[in-house]
């Protein structure tokens, strides 16, 4: 199942440079876009939204978006909302961590195995949402 060529779901992680939780969100987003649903998803730079880049604003307004935030600051979700983007779902790493307390992420440059596993769980969750969006749009 795939979407038409110009229809993609954007998966946008927070930049989360100060915490392992941010690295988990970023890794999860790459897993969805590069491995799980490469045909139906794209990633874009959150920083481009923060500076109001026209091309990026157009992308998030015309396509469904899933945000993945590391922490309750919800930078990604807030930036997509502030840009009037089509936010379908905002995932938060800390919510999923709450149900998998054994998967405590550590490391920012390089995540520990628990962090990688947590990222995979979040990626699977995001992939399910992508499937729902694709089904709805077809």
């Amino acid at each position, binding site marked *: 199942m795939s979407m038409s060529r110009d229809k993609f779901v954007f998966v946008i992680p927070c*930049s989360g*440079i100060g915490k392992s939780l941010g690295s988990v969100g970023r890794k999860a987003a790459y897993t969805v876009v590069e491995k799980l649903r490469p045909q139906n998803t794209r990633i874009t*730079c959150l920083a481009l*939204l923060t*500076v109001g880049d026209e091309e990026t604003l157009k992308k998030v307004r015309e396509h469904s978006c899933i945000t993945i935030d590391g922490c309750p600051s919800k930078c990604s979700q807030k*930036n997509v909302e502030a840009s009037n983007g089509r936010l379908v779902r905002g995932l938060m790493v800390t919510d999923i961590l709450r149900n998998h307390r054994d998967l405590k992420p550590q490391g920012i*440059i390089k995540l520990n195995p628990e962090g990688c596993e947590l990222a995979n769980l979040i990626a699977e969750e995001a992939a399910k949402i992508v499937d729902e969006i694709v089904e709805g749009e077809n």
Partner: protein
Amino acid sequence: MAITWQKVGIVSCSGEEIPEGTISRIATRLVLEELRPDQTVTICLPLFLAGGEGERTFAQLFPTITVDGCEKRCAEIGTKKYSGKPFATIVVKDSLKKCPQLKLRSRAEISADELEFAQKVAEKIVEKVDEALGREKGTIRSEKDE
């Protein structure tokens, strides 16, 4: 009266879309974790727009160095917009021109060559950090070794 800064803020672009963004991020972390852990802090760029008053105030009071992956210079533009002119600006794509043999490929996991390049970018950041703090040039080394 001379002003002596004790901390420098490093603002990296998030750069999810391109490998240069991953290099910016890793170079920034190398400075924070290994090269100048006591003199640097990082500022989360999207927090500027999400209402991170602490981030904005810090960047208004302390020198900042922006590290951008590409010529769109989001970190530099964001810092100027919300806090003030950065002390120094670095663009990874410019540094890459000096390493024509290196082709950046990965956004998620970087190779040994890419890590080596990130270390070079980190050293460039350190030069600017030391300049901002008034240190002598040519003293780049890991503070873990001291």
